[in-house]
């Protein structure tokens, strides 16, 4: 009876191939419009720019697998980067620790509010987003006064080439953390429970699972992933501001949805999100090469995301 050994479904791999095809297609299209894009250094830059989005989308993936969402992730990312830069005079390690503590605190509030007090994740994290904007706006001039530049070593880690092109430090960080997340989702008990509560929290509870603990852990991990992404964003832009990660919020959700994770929870995987992230990154490069106004670019961006999401849902239904 080894019939159950491979539980990866045909359906998932089929749609992953479809996404891969879309990515290659977009890549070739962009290279056709801008031949420079078809070069190893350009691929290297694209991948290193995709890393922060890939990390934020990683956090979003696990939240959405539980049937939740984290709309405060961009402010968590900005906040973590902000705290790291302010605390940098007392050493990079200490600064990173403060950043991590901030993420754990915010993630805990989100997770416990959702898990123990039954707050709707959308409302809870939207509210948290507003609170964080307020706290940091006040903080800039009072208790968080200080350096607004990232420690040198983190700036290097966010930009420098690793060994040779197209590999870079952000890509390595993304690969390591992404690998850990894939392990978490596919090979650990917590991963199973993330899927379980997203599919049917009532069933998980009846099986003796304390659903709130899983939600707590999920939102804390999500916040930590957001924090790491935020530090990379801060390092890539050099200086830190409150609005640092705002442009990443909606793409972090879009990457997950394009990657095939159900917003209702219970189904999906990080592999899809990685492809979704790469598709969105190539897409923004493509739009940057088109010579037209910002408004037109936004419309094209939105239209393409909607088309992708629609096509994807068709593909998964048919298989």
């Amino acid at each position, binding site marked *: 009876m*080894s019939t*159950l050994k491979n539980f990866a*479904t045909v359906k998932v791999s089929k749609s992953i191939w479809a996404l891969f095809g879309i990515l290659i297609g977009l890549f070739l299209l962009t290279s056709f419009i801008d031949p420079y894009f078809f070069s190893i250094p350009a691929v290297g830059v694209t991948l290193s720019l995709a890393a922060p989005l890939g990390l934020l989308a990683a956090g979003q993936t696990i939240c959405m697998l539980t049937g939740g969402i984290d709309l405060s992730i961009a402010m968590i990312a900005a906040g973590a980067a902000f705290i790291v830069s302010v605390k940098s005079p007392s050493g990079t390690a200490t600064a990173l620790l403060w950043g991590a503590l901030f993420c754990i605190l915010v993630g805990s509030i989100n997770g416990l509010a959702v898990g123990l007090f039954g707050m709707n994740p959308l409302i809870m994290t939207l509210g948290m987003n507003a609170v964080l904007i307020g706290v940091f706006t006040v903080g800039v001039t009072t208790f968080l006064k200080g350096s607004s530049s990232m420690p040198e070593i983190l700036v290097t880690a966010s930009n420098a080439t690793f060994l040779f092109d197209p590999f870079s430090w952000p890509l390595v960080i993304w690969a390591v953390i992404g690998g850990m997340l894939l392990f978490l989702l596919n*090979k650990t*008990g917590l991963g199973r429970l993330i899927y*379980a509560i997203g599919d049917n929290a009532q069933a998980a*509870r*009846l*099986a*003796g699972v304390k659903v709130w603990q899983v939600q707590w852990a999920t939102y804390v991990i999500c916040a930590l992933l957001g924090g790491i992404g935020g530090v990379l964003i801060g390092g890539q832009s050099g200086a830190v501001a409150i609005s640092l990660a705002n442009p990443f919020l909606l793409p972090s959700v879009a990457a997950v949805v394009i990657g095939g994770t159900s917003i209702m929870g219970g189904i999906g995987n990080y592999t899809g999100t990685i492809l979704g992230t790469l598709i969105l990154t190539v897409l923004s490069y493509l739009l940057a090469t088109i010579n037209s106004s910002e408004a037109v670019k936004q419309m094209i961006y939105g239209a393409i995301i909607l088309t992708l999401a629609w096509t994807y849902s068709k593909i998964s239904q048919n298989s």
Partner: protein
Amino acid sequence: MTKDLLLEINSVAKSYGPVVALKNANLSVRPGEIHALLGANGAGKSTLVKILTGVISSDTGYISLHGQKVQFSSPDDARKNGVAPVFQDPALIPDVSLQRNLALTGTNEKRFLKEIEAMGLSVNLNEIAANIELPTLRMIDLARALSHDPELLILDEITAALPIDLADKVIEIMNAQKEKGKSVIFISHRLAEIESICDWATVLRDGIDVDSFEANKQIEDRIVSAMLGEKNNVANATRRTKQSSQDTETLLEVVNLSGGKNLTDVSFEIKKGEVLGVAALEGQGQDFLFEILAGQSKPDSGEILVNGQKITFKHPADAIKLGISYVPGDRKSALMPQRSIRENLALTRFRGVRNWGRIKGKEENRTVDNAVASLEIDTRAKSQVKRLSGGNQQKVTIGRWVTTGFDLLLCFDPTRGIDVGTKQQIYELIRKFADEGKSVLLFTSELREIALTCDRAIVIYEGKVQANLEIEKCNEENLMNAAHGLVVSS
């Protein structure tokens, strides 16, 4: 089509996917007749009422009113054509005032208030429906139906939620309708009511009208035997291998338990290695009893003792820790539909933070494969349990506890909507558990299952234990009588 009939339902059938709710139902109601519609739970009564009143449409067959074929598009449409239903559950929108509720169905306020007054009640039209007591709500539903002056009034178990004085009032109203030459379809589990007021009775079983006869005195036996059908037991019923469980220790004791809407005062005990059957009509509090024992709901009062120790549950995890596992009546609430058989079977392995780490793949394979083999689960659609048949889904919910291990399995109607072959497998499984020294508390809406699988049975009526029967006494007549509140000597 006969002219002198008010209503004729001809060969109506309805299926929901693979589940057949009505196979072939016929019903004729004459003007000025009170017609009882009877049948066990799941026989198709409510489906028939829904088709008749335009809530759902039938797959085949037709309905005619005054000799004219009709098909109502909505309850509103039915009401306008003189067919007014009072459904089993209150049909008022809880969060808005009575006045607005009346306006929604186009009910004339004056006529409504006149009907309410005639019932000897008074209501405030500005009251929010949610604040009104259940019995009063039922009467409001009835008054609303009456104010449309229906040719045919349909009452679906209205008396079940009513105290005796209001139930008498309903019977008066039915008789008044009859005197006016109007008809009533009356659905009730209370046989005494039916004998005293109904003119004709039709019995449904498994979606077919199996019997229809004049309701004069002493029809009780005929009703019960029509409801139960032939005493055809499932081929070669499971043999009880156990001699007696009288000498063994008590595993679980329940003392004066009450809670929820219906459970008022229940006491019983289960011994080790015993299968205790629970029989009850719908809505006697049995569902809440199971939820309490599973740690899913909290009782209002009473005690639960496991191995002589008094215990309280805060979470299902507490019950599982003590070896009490729950197979709920609704399979959907126990399964993760989009996940694989493996993940569903292995779910309980990860409860508790210390099991959040790396999955022990080999150990998991072994337990999952064991469960699949011993329960004969069909693994062709293994990647998503929502694609399994109902029987296989039920095997997965039971198999989960086989992989986990338990002392007491709470099974709530485990064979509902399952094919005969799988039913037999589940009976055998339950007997196997008992042979291994484990206990099972089995509620079933199919009374014959009690004689097939249980060692003893209790019957719950109106939230209390009405009878405590040894296996020799667990025939369907006794169980049915006790379930209707009649005294059965034990």
